[in-house]
């Protein structure tokens, strides 16, 4: 049935959607295109507008301007009960006076599905969420993780075109969270329904999503796959929000065909970086380098051989062995600090504490730097 509606349409499409609460602009001209069957995540800090976006797709709050389409149909004036969209709410919003089975069966009951058919479907959902035999319990008798799964079943039983999830794992502790992340992904693959997922947890977004929209102050700042966003952040906000980053501010000295040279005050030599976006000489720019791309160079004379053309000097201020890698903070000659992740023992034979106070040279390749303009 889902196929009849045609995949020529986006599952969800927002065109120029804005939302004002009084004088506060919660969403500012947001446009999104979410494909059929996609696991799509709205990621951002609290107050960025991600939950507002979700509530607009669900129909709980009206738009101030713009168009919302679900499967090609314009829906922004439809109430929630006329949209084939279901939601897993933050803190689940299970009906406390109903049993688990009544909660899950609520959607079909509202659509006047015969009672025996409802019972069959509820049973099937209880299997899907691995809670068979829990039908007669009240929500308060379940753990947080179990409640979360019931909320998921209550939404999925209606076979919606799109499932909206508002920080569904936010209230759970880390271990259950990780386990449910896997389950969510499996269930999504099994049912093939488009998921729109809201979270402020960048790691969760990376693990689950096909595509991510990073939001900040009511705008979508960047949209893309987890890898493209991580490796090519659109601006400093994205680079900071997703993963850890080092930033070097400087002035463009030279623009070649594929390479830009940036002079950073306080550094002995300029930084070379690939020219992925147009810049002009004299422009102020930021170069971003991920901590795992930077390496400690014990002997600078070998650096050239390893393409580590960018080199900065500094003194080790902090070092901590974290198992997979050693995290080192280096105070640089320009007064800023750099964070580096050195895999395993790597170049370091000695214990982290003995590194403190050592003068070191850090290096990275031309292709490891990212040029940010903002």
């Amino acid at each position, binding site marked *: 049935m889902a196929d009849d509606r045609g995949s020529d349409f986006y599952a969800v499409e927002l065109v120029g959607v804005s939302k004002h609460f009084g004088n506060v602009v919660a969403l500012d001209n947001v446009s999104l295109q979410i494909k059929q069957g996609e696991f799509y995540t709205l990621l951002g800090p609290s107050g960025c507008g991600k939950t507002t976006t979700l509530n607009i797709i669900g129909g*709980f709050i009206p738009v101030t301007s713009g168009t919302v389409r679900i499967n090609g149909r314009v829906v922004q004036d439809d*109430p929630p*009960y006329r949209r084939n969209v*279901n939601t897993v709410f933050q*803190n689940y*919003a*299970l009906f406390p*006076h109903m049993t688990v089975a009544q909660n899950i069966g*609520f959607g079909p009951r509202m659509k006047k599905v015969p009672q025996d058919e409802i019972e069959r479907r509820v049973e099937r959902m209880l299997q899907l969420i691995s809670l068979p035999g829990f039908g007669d319990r009240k929500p308060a008798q379940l753990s947080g993780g179990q409640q979360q799964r019931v909320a998921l079943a209550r939404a999925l039983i*209606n076979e919606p075109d799109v499932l909206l999830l508002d920080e569904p794992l936010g209230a759970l502790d880390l271990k259950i969270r990780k386990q449910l992340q896997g389950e969510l992904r499996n269930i999504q693959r099994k049912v093939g329904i488009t998921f729109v997922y809201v979270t402020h947890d960048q790691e969760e977004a990376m693990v689950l999503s096909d595509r991510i929209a990073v939001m900040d102050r009511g705008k979508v700042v960047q949209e893309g796959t987890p890898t493209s966003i991580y490796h090519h952040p659109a601006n400093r906000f994205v680079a900071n929000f997703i993963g850890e980053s080092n930033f070097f501010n400087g002035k463009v000295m030279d623009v070649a065909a594929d390479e830009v040279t940036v002079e950073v005050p306080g550094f002995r030599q300029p930084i070379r970086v690939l020219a992925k976006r147009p810049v002009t000489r004299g422009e102020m720019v930021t170069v971003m380098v991920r901590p795992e791309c930077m390496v400690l160079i014990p002997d600078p004379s070998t650096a050239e051989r390893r393409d580590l053309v960018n080199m900065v000097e500094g003194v080790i201020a902090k070092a901590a062995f974290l198992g997979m890698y050693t995290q080192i903070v280096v105070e640089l000659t320009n007064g800023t600090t750099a964070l580096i992740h050195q895999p395993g023992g790597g170049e370091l034979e000695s214990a982290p504490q003995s590194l403190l106070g050592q003068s070191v040279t850090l290096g990275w390749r031309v292709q490891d730097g990212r040029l940010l303009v903002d």
Partner: protein
Amino acid sequence: MNVTSRQGRTQALFRVYGILGYLFLYLPVFLLMFFSFNKSSAGSLPFTGFTLKWYQDLFADRLVIDAFWNSLRVAVLTSLVSTVIGTIAAFPMARLSFRFKEALRILFILPIMVPGLLIGISLLIFFASWLDIRLSLATVVIGHVVFTTPFVLLVVTARLLDFNYLLEWAAADLGATPFNTFRYVTFPLISPGVLAGALFAFTLSLDEFIITFFTIGPQSTLPMYIFSQVKFGITPKINALATLLFMGSILILCTFFYTLSRRGQART
């Protein structure tokens, strides 16, 4: 040692204080109940023997039976009307923000503070001089609704402020129309508050005297009857009537708390 004995003394003192408090509240009631079984018609000591005569007298008295049914009819109607009005009014008070909301809220609740005498007289003038309608049990119901509705409003508003609005979003999300959302989700969850409000209104109406006195026609209610009898001295028949009323109120209260606690258990 010293400390514990002093603690013990303080505790004993508080216990005596508590017992005295309860005695103050309930001793007159229990005495009244006690004398309703006394053979002597004086309504005071000595206790001359156990009898149910006064209860028999009571049930044989047409005036009492009429007054009882009138009171019950007024209380049931009052409780129904004020519960509906109070519950409906509670929604905007709990959920919307609009101009003069605080002022409106205070105006709505004010009848609790306004002396019954004032409400009674003003209603009498309103009914008799302005509307020119005949005083009856209906006018009594209207008068009672004026001062019982605020109680319903207060109780239901408190319940609604506790209500997680996401539950209504969830119902709408699952395809429930606004009516079905109210029927299957909102009302079941606020019903203990609504029930409490209805009981409040019922009991307040049942023993209301002053407003009734001003707004009633030729009929009588239980409080009116008792008042008229007391003029000729307290007879044990009144004691018997009061005892039954007291037992009735206790029964209603116990049923209410029992159903409430059962619901509570089912929820946890």
